[in-house]
């Protein structure tokens, strides 16, 4: 797979860990920008924290100094029987210890709060983005990946915040301070130390390049693991019924191994990086000992200077290691930020208009398709390879579904859309709900292009019920109120009654307060569909779209819904897609679709009377299926 210049954008690069340099740099720049964006609001607080570390370091340093004061002055005074100086030292030590640790506690709290606030904001941003991205995106991205982005990626950042920040500030200050002290002690010896810097920088660059790829790989591996895991949990019935456990275990084991080896790679890099730094430090120390020893013998410096220098050297290199460790966490966090910034940068192909047009009030519900051409977007190939070939490009993507569609549905009309599978009925419905935008032409509600409507206005005007009716964990009442948050219990019950769901709901153990459990699993498919109907009804849209919305209902329930629809649809526009033509009884108008075009259009009776047309044929087949 070749990486084109645009591939690094968005989630297209999710699968690649070894990127060409240029793309890698841009990815990192992107994640830095995101980091900057997160840090910016906390600049002042962070500066304050840095100041606090400075003060705390001073108190910390005071300890050894006070010990020496105690020894130099306290003991002689004590010998004279004077407890004053030693007591003073004792008290000073206690005070500075209390202040140092108190400041540390405050600092940790403060930095922790900043970090958690940043994480919260990041989670909010990413969640909002996911919710805003179009369905086409979600169809590719999988829910497992969404979970991974919002759980395990922030976790990686949390580690950075938890372990890194205070150590880093401390270390930087110490390195700087000790660097100055060394320079004060002896310039030539300091130059020896400076000589080590290029070697360290080279090592750092090496580590930086490889660990970026390694950590990118860990992010991708854990995402793949989560995707497979979620898929297993959600499909557990089929897993068990078809004895997929062993194969699943094999796939999971493979993915787990990949995660393990990705982590191993990152750890091995660190296992070379840190000892590398240590080796350089050892070389420098040896050089200082020898060169310093020579300088002492040549009388250029005092012994004390050399001793001091060597002692400082160690305290100089230790924090450098801390910085290296921080850099490691930073690399890991950056990989997570790369993934997250990729999501955030993903273009929303269905953006809300900058200046939305209002819908005319009162809403009429006229629907029109003007010269609409549509083909599903091509898929991106970001699937992981458990087995099988990645499905891309062909399939549904790219093929023109609607060549050129013109349709006008007057307000209040109930239209039945019929035709064979793949004729484009559902596509038409999705365009009306703006799940996709047409490549050409416009879809209008009351004369306003749906692309010019604010999302809230569009959703208030048009609501769709499909055969996949997702219910959220929570009570039945909550799920119905999803159609209109803030609906009263009376309104909820009214909606349920209108649709014929009241009876079964009141028979549930806790009635409307019964928890439907995960994905509504407590209810049968038919009951879920009834709740979905009630949810749509309570939303009270001007245009109601029903796409195979009664497929899981048994005949009596369907009949009940049909009967309810007569009243419900009396004052609104409806677009009904159904294989079972019982729906047609309530339709004013029937459209027969074939290959994305409307081939028959008219009142049901008229079309039936014609006798020889497609609708008549479909109707005949349906009558026969009833037995």
């Amino acid at each position: 797979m070749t990486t084109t210049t645009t591939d690094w954008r968005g989630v297209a690069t999710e699968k690649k860990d070894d990127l060409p340099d240029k793309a890698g740099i841009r990815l990192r720049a992107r994640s830095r920008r995101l980091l900057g964006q997160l840090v910016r609001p906390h600049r002042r607080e962070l500066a304050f924290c840095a100041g606090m570390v400075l003060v705390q370091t001073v108190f910390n340093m005071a300890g050894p100094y006070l010990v020496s004061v105690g020894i130099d002055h306290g003991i002689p005074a004590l010998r004279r029987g004077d407890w004053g100086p030693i007591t003073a030292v004792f008290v000073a030590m206690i005070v500075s210890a209390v202040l140092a640790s108190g400041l540390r506690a405050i600092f940790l709290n403060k930095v922790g709060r900043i970090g958690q606030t940043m994480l919260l904001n990041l989670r909010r941003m990413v969640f909002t983005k996911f919710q805003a991205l179009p369905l086409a995106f979600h169809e590719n991205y999988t829910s497992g990946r969404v979970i991974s982005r919002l759980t395990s990626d922030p976790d990686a950042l949390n580690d950075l915040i938890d372990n890194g920040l205070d150590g880093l500030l401390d270390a930087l200050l110490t390195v700087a301070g000790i660097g100055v002290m060394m320079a004060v002690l002896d310039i030539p010896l300091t130059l020896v130390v400076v000589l080590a810097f290029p070697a360290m920088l080279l090592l750092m660059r090496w580590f930086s390049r490889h660990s970026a790829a390694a950590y990118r790989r860990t992010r991708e591996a854990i995402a793949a693991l989560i995707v497979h895991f979620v898929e297993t949990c959600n499909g557990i019935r089929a897993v068990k019924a078809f004895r997929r456990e062993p194969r699943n275990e094999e796939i999971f084991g493979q993915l787990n191994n990949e995660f393990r080896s990705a982590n191993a790679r990152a750890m091995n890099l660190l296992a070379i990086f840190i000892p590398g730094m240590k080796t350089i430090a050892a070389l420098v120390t040896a050089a200082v000992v020898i060169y310093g020893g020579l300088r002492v013998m040549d009388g250029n410096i005092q012994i004390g200077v050399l001793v001091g220098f060597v002692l400082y050297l160690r305290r100089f290199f230790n924090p450098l290691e801390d910085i290296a460790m921080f850099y490691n966490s930073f690399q890991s966090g950056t990989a997570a930020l790369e993934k997250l910034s990729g999501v955030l940068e993903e273009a929303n192909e269905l953006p809300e208009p900058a200046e939305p047009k209002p819908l005319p009030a009162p809403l009429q519900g006229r629907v029109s398709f003007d010269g609409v051409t549509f083909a599903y977007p091509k898929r991106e190939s970001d699937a992981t390879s458990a087995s099988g070939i990645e499905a891309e490009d062909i399939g549904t993507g790219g093929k023109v579904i609607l060549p050129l569609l013109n349709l006008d549905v007057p307000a209040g009309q109930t239209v039945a859309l019929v035709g064979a599978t793949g004729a484009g009925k559902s596509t038409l419905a999705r365009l009306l709900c703006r799940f996709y935008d047409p490549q050409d032409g416009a879809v209008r509600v009351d004369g306003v292009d749906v692309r010019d409507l604010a999302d809230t206005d569009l959703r208030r005007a048009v609501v769709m019920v499909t055969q996949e009716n997702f219910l959220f964990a929570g009570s039945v009442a909550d799920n119905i109120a999803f159609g209109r948050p803030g609906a009263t219990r009376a309104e909820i019950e009214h909606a349920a009654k209108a649709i014929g769901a009241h009876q079964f709901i009141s028979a549930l153990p806790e009635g409307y307060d019964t928890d439907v459990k995960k994905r509504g699993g407590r209810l049968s498919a038919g009951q879920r569909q009834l709740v979905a109907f009630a949810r749509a009804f309570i939303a009270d849209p001007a245009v109601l779209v029903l796409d195979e919305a009664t497929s899981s209902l048994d005949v009596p329930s369907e009949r009940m819904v049909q009967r309810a629809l007569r009243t419900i649809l009396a004052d609104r526009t409806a677009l009904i897609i159904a294989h079972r033509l019982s729906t047609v009884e309530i339709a004013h108008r029937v459209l027969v679709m074939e290959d994305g075009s409307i081939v028959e259009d008219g009142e049901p009776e008229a079309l039936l009377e014609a006798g020889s047309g497609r609708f008549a044929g479909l109707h005949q087949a349906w009558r026969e299926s009833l037995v």
Partner: protein
Amino acid sequence: MESTPAEVTSKPKIPDEPRRGAFASLRRLTPFIRPYRGQMVLMTLSALGATLVGVAVPLLTKDLIDGPIAHHNKAALWPLGGLVLLFGIAEAVLFWLRRWFLQRAALGIEADIRNAFYRHLQKLPVAFHDSWQSGQLVSRMSGDINSLRRFFGFALIFLVVNGATFLLVGGALIFIHTVMGLIIYAASVPLILYGRLADRRYHRQSRAAQDQAGDVATLVEESALGIRAVKAFGRQGLLYSRFDEHAKTLRSLELRKIRTLSELWAMFALQPQLVLSLCVLIGAYAVSSGALTLGTLVAFISLYLTLLWPIESMAWLMAQSQEANSAAERVLEVLDIVPNIADAEAVAHSRPASAGELVFENVSFTYPNSDRPVISGFDLRVAAGETVALVGPTGCGKTTLTALVPRLYDTTSGRVLVDGVDVRELPLSELRSKVACAFEDPTLFSASVRENLTMGVPDASQEQVEEALAIAQADFVNELPWALDTRVGEQGLTLSGGQRQRVALARAVLGRPSILVLDDPLSALDIHTEGKVEEALHSVLRGTTGLVVAHRPSTVLLADRVVLLSPPGPEGTTIAAVGTHQELLRTCPAYRDILSQTSDLVDAADESEPDTCDSELMEVSR
């Protein structure tokens, strides 16, 4: 039971007393560590070695001053410099060794636990998955097991190393000055007591945060899976506010942890400083009174200074351990649940050339955590080769009945028998290879079409696959970009509902199972396709025992007999009537009501109780 604690694990419930000591849950993970104990020991030794070498380097400075410099011996400088280098490199190598073992052991332990977790989850019954949100499981599988890795690879090692350092150096300090040394030991007692207290708090807090992280994951999953509903109603705002509430709670729980941790840090940093000041005071007095030489005092204090960091870092290490401990608790909670649908200890085998007779014997079923039976007293014998349709009002338990056959659930009372053998006595794999299902909600996995089809029959021939595709009218798969090798499912090509249903049906009929369970398998098909599938299914069902949930007359016609179920009620569903489709249509108004489209007859009767056709149903509805 009380006398043999080992048996406690056989209890199917979550243990209510999770902590009996700070490391109770972690200790229970010992079996996972055992294969790596060699590496763990080596890891600890390298860490200890590195610490010791680190202490040794400053000693070289003394040699430098006392040796070459004092004697102006330039030649002797070189070997000494070499020694410094050697020690430095030794430290580097020891570090590398530790990380090397860490990588192998910690990652190995992590991978093993994760595999075990997944394996166990697949064994747990459907009822478990019904009640556990997958977000909670995901957070245990990723976040919690990650923190176990960190514990085994880092915190555990340094707890040991730091503890050893404290004891060793402390011993040396006692040797130098008994009183002050003992004071150092004694002063650690209140610190340890405080640490345990704070740890207990941290344990609770990290448990709460982990649980909350699971809830966040659950919410994220719901919002991703339900994205169509969210978008269709424009409820992004509602979902966001739910998410935000959870995320904010998570933040405040994390802040609570941070507060405890910073307090721990502060106390563990303060205590050694206070002890130091006390030592200085006592030492100064001892020196002034001549009981101690100045040199000894200096040695004592500089030795004590090397203990500062090991003591201070204990705060963090202990917190990490508590975090790992509560993570272990969460992982064990799942691992401790004993799958109650598993192979019986004494498995029976049905006759190999089994015909596929299916019998429900006085079957009742109540969902766990519910006191209302869904099904009660259900008796049905489906003869080998016969097909029975289940018909009944929405929510009466048809799907539940079908799930009892492959043991996705077990009956609450009564038995399900396949060829005369209780399904609970058959090995699961044998039972499930005899029984094939197609569910209402067709699940396809992210794998090739072929793998999805041959899941139940891995050695299926090409002819068998083609036959199954033909029966299910799923020939469209040949037109997919890579035909049977095209990946479908969540991570593959998106198929329409009708297409998925047909692939799922083909999967069920592949290899001609002896019992075929179909739960409204054609709901998403158009009439034309449905007709064709039914025609083909007829031929399949002729040689197979079939149990078919039917909502439509056309599906009912697949069956030789029809079982009409009574409406759902507090006593549970049972059989209302049995007969052929024609018989029931003739004699049973309730059946007509359920299957007939002709609405004129029923419109008036809709609000009233449906007519009944036999006394059994009368009893139920009363």
